[in-house]
């Protein structure tokens, strides 16, 4: 059953728009950072990443509801669902902070950390949001 759940999770994540949007935003931010000529640019792009991560909650809201419902039907425990959603958040946060990692880790370590944490915390809202949306009480 564990493999089934993982397969469902992978399918939902790969078919959702959130991952694609974060990848495209990440590539764009990377190029903007490459052409940067202002010290504030990394921090501004960091804020854009934050907006993107918040947007992903809205973009894939229905899909996440569906995933949660399917997992519930499969008999997953609340902790399993929490771990899977955290994994998803981790994935999105990593993708959104990739530009800073690719350019120069040392110069942008603060921006990298901030982006990662902001994206992670924003996306953690998915769990709370989706659970409220589907009215599934754990």
């Amino acid at each position, binding site marked *: 059953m564990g493999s089934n759940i993982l397969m469902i999770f992978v399918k939902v994540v790969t078919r959702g728009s959130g991952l694609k949007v974060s990848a495209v935003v990440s590539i764009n931010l990377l190029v*903007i950072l490459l052409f940067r000529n202002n010290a504030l640019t990394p921090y501004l792009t960091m804020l854009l990443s934050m*907006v993107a991560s918040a947007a992903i909650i809205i973009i894939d809201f229905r899909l996440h509801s569906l995933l949660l419902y399917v997992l519930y039907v499969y008999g997953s425990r609340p902790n399993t669902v929490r771990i899977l959603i955290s994994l998803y958040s981790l994935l999105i946060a990593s993708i959104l902070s990739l530009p800073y990692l690719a350019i120069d880790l040392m110069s942008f370590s603060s921006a990298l950390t901030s982006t990662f944490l902001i994206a992670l915390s924003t996306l953690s809202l998915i769990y709370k949001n989706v659970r409220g949306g589907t009215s599934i009480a754990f």
Partner: protein
Amino acid sequence: MTREYKTVIKARLARLVGIYKLSLLILRKPFTYLVILATILSVIASGLNTKYENNLVVVRDPTITGDPHTMLIRFSEPVGVEACSTLLSGLSLEGHCTYYYRVILDHPYQLVKSRKLIYVVLGVEEEVLKGLGLEDGLSEFSFGYSEISEESATDSMLLDGKILEVTLVHVNSNLLANYLIFYKTPIIPVQGYVGTEPVTVPLQHVLISTYDNVMRLANVSEPLATDIVVTNLSGFIEPVKVFEFLEERYPVTEVAVTGNGYVMYVSEVRIPTPDSLISAVLSSITASIIIISIFSSTTPYLKELRNKIFLMGFQPWAMTIVMVGYTLTSIMFPGLITLTYVFISMGGASTLNSLVTLTTSWLTSTIYIVLRTKPEKLVTEAYMPPTFRYVLISSVTDVRRLTEFIVKLIKTNEFFTSEEVEWRVEGNEAFIHAKMDYVDSWGSGIDLTIFVNVNGEKSYVNISSAVFGVEEVSESMSRSINALAISKIVGGVTAWEATS
């Protein structure tokens, strides 16, 4: 004001209010905040990332000899004459500096006897005066003037409320008008161009004199210059380098250097580099992706909203107006405010970049959302239902309540004035007849015959309609009137049934 006119105004206002309320409904959704944030951030990012360079123009002319090179430097306000030596030593150059003090006066001087107003005062060096035919030079308070017939004359000059006795010395008008300090740059300040020809101040308003005389007139102790010409330069130098060197120290507006067969001009006008334009485009792509993604996830909600307002009798363009208004309010409005901030804090070149970002984001987002919320088939969805007979099956079995509600719907239809409404309920059946005048077109309307029948747990509402007009009613008009009348009843009963 006639009753019909009042009704027309009322109906149109009702539509406007409807559109406004619908816009507010969408605008209050949480995703609007994300759209606003994405717009503001990308506009600022684009402005911040702007790299610009000074505008460089090269004029090719085979008659120009660039050996030795000559350079012209122009300033927006007078600077100390040491600027030239600072430049030459700073860039390790050698050359001969010639200074010009050329000012256009805000408050003209007045020559009392000649009754002339002087708008331009030129202060030049002795060698220039010799070139203008004033070999003997000019004594204290003597000025060259081309508009006197005698060799010299005395006059009183009124300046800043004071009278000053001056001597005017005749200067050849042709020489003065055609004297060039640099390539196609006359000594008299240029006010504008007609085609490529410069337009200068008329000679009757121009006085020329030595540096000392003009400095006395301007009441300044140290010599100042508005233009410097460096001749016999030891070598060619990039005008951009000169401009960058000077702009840190002086209010320089233009640097021009002659080369072999060409003149290079660098002005203070700044244009964004291709790199920064790429950055602007990428910022707009990022903003567009975020905004479009948000819009795409909200499309089902917006489509549902669209269908509801169609049932209420709104036209298809209502949704387009609502969506364009929405993007204007959530993207363009905050974007323009941010653009103002960018202009004030970062300057014109950054504003151009930010404007590219804002316009691209707004256009792509608007086109996307308008296309997504557009009905798939405009005609069928717009004029639902297009039939002249319609049967509505309802679960409301109280025939009297249902009939009274339908009558209410007929009477409150904002697109029509009910000329006559009559109804009768008998047992499980009811009959309604209504004659309604269409408010948007004089002399046309619809005649409705509705038969309500309750059978078991369902009720059947049979609607028949006939559109009439004192003149010939077009097919589209007829369908529109029919749809507006029937859809109000169908939509109203369906919504009432769902909520009651």
